[in-house]
């Protein structure tokens, strides 16, 4: 799938602006971002349910949307299957009827419809539910019927719009695994929209992060986690969120340091080249809570006070305040810490990110 320069503007604001994406055959590709970032808009344009203001969309080698060349293929003819957030099941039909519908519309023979529907139902474990109507099914069951309706057509592309958002937490985790399984079995190219970064990281082959209609970064889960391209991506991926501290780049004794006011951080050698290019000296230092350690006073550490502590089963989330700003650190559950206690927070040097304060782009 190729998306070129896709732009869709709404009366209330921009949906998507100048989006360019290459999605590989068989990939499980995620569109991630906060609400209003343009991910659903993009999906609907790919489906053909929305017509963009400009840009082109290719499905395989077929050009399905092109504003410039005035080409537009209707959703019915695109060979895409879609799963909606509210499942969009036809309330007056049984589960069987729902799954059979796309086949019936394309004129398949009754016996063929019968076999294909049963096959799809079996692969999803809902064979015994086929006689029921949507209102007689639970959330998870309805979701599977919606999936059934999508896979029964054996389409070229799956489009999924936050399909797990309406399920309770436990079910969501379970369905995530099921979806991944399904994808491995069928190998169909999938475009998946979500606002949940945990979900994106766990099921996606590659992730495209969007904000306010603009693409921020594309990459594998490791890419976006280890090498966020800007402050937004850094702060969006990972939970608890990355700690951000403002400071200044200072040259000292041939090294470059980040002066955080209360202490200075020496930057690792590998970064010196990148930092030399820096246009400004005002920067933001980012470091993930999982890359910090609570220790005693040492170099390259920052003084902080414990404000409160959360025990999350296998880890301790320590909330601290330094320079009046909140920080989060992760520690072993066995650590003994008291509110108000003064500690030193050390950062893993190899895992620091420096962002230009103004452009918010990563320098290292």
């Amino acid at each position, binding site marked *: 799938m190729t998306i070129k320069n896709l732009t869709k503007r709404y009366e209330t604001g921009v949906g998507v602006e100048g989006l360019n994406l290459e999605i590989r055959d068989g990939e499980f590709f995620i569109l991630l971002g906060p609400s209003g970032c343009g991910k659903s808009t993009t999906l*609907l344009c790919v*489906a*053909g*349910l929305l017509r963009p203001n400009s840009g082109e969309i290719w499905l395989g080698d077929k050009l399905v949307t092109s504003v410039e060349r005035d080409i537009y293929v*209707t*959703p*019915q*003819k*695109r060979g*895409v*299957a*879609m799963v*909606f*957030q*509210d499942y*969009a*099941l*036809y*309330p*007056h039909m049984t589960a069987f009827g729902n799954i059979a*519908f*796309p086949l019936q*519309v*394309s004129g398949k023979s009754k016996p063929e419809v019968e076999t294909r529907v049963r096959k799809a139902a079996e692969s999803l474990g809902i064979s015994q539910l086929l006689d029921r109507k949507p209102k007689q099914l639970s959330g998870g069951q309805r979701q599977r019927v919606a999936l059934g*309706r999508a896979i029964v*057509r054996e389409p070229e592309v799956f*489009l999924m719009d936050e399909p797990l958002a309406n399920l309770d937490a436990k079910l969501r985790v379970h369905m995530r695994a099921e979806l991944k399984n399904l994808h491995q079995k069928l190998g169909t190219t999938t475009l998946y929209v979500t606002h949940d970064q945990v979900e994106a990281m766990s099921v996606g082959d590659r992730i495209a992060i969007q904000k306010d209609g603009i693409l921020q970064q594309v990459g594998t889960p490791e890419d976006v986690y280890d090498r966020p391209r800007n402050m937004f991506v850094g702060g969006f991926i990972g939970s608890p969120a990355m700690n951000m501290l403002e400071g200044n780049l200072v040259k000292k004794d041939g090294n470059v340091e980040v002066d955080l006011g209360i202490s200075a951080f020496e930057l690792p050698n590998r970064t010196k080249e990148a930092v030399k290019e820096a246009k400004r000296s005002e920067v933001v230092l980012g470091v993930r809570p999982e890359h910090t350690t609570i220790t005693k006073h040492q170099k390259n550490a920052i003084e902080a006070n414990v404000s409160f502590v959360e025990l999350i089963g296998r880890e301790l989330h320590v909330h601290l305040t330094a320079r009046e700003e909140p920080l989060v650190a992760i520690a072993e559950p066995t650590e003994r810490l008291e509110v108000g206690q003064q500690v030193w927070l050390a950062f893993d040097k190899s895992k620091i990110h420096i962002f230009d304060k103004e452009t918010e782009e990563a320098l290292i």
Partner: protein
Amino acid sequence: MTFPKPERITLYILLAFFIFTSVLPLWTCIMTSIKTAQDVIYTMPLEPPSSPTLDPMMQAFDIMKRPLLNSFAFTIFATILSCTLGSTNGYILAKIRFRGSEVVFLLLAIGIFIPYQTVLIPLVMTISKLGLYNTIQGLILTHTAYGIPICTLLFRSYYEDIPESLMRAAKTDGAGTWTTFRRIVLPLSSPMFAVAGVFQFTSIWNDFLFGLVLARGTDALPASVALANLKGTTTAFWNVQMAGAWWYALPVVIIYLILGKYLIQGYMAGAIKG
């Protein structure tokens, strides 16, 4: 809302009073329609007859037989036609976004409110030119045409409540506009057909003006006009008149008692949706 004890008594007294006022006309109607002419003059209208008789009822029925049949004929046909057109129109206005659909809707909405006197003269001329004066078909055409706006409004507001995702799902599943209508939207429309159907039936059945102006002769005389004629004549005394009113009211009363909730929804649609 809870009221303290003494006020609850007043509450029920008031409610009972209004029951009395609501029912009074209907009660006197029924009583009068089973009285002989003597009884009508000499007994109180509220009292039951000393010697009840079904005579007035039979007389009235005899007079109203044909008009009642006429009314049934054009009412049923016009109801079916206007509801069918209303549902397709409502679907188009609600689900197919096109420029000017709001304007079209507004124009139709105005059609609901116009006083029919405003179009009476052209209407009479049109119907007679079409050779449909004094015919059931003429009445069917008229009632259908003037019923389209309200039916469209009813269906449109109903269809707007169908989630867009359902339409999108049908589209990606390969269904075109009319396949979607036939297989998804229509099956979901039965409640609204009930509402529109009941509302249209009572409106058309209750109509008087069009009948008066377009169908005076016996061929297509509606029951409403026949009843009015009954009042005008000196030969039909009060008991026959009341019996006639009773026959004419019967279908609507039955519908009201059995399918009343649909009728109420129809009345509300105008109020809430505006």
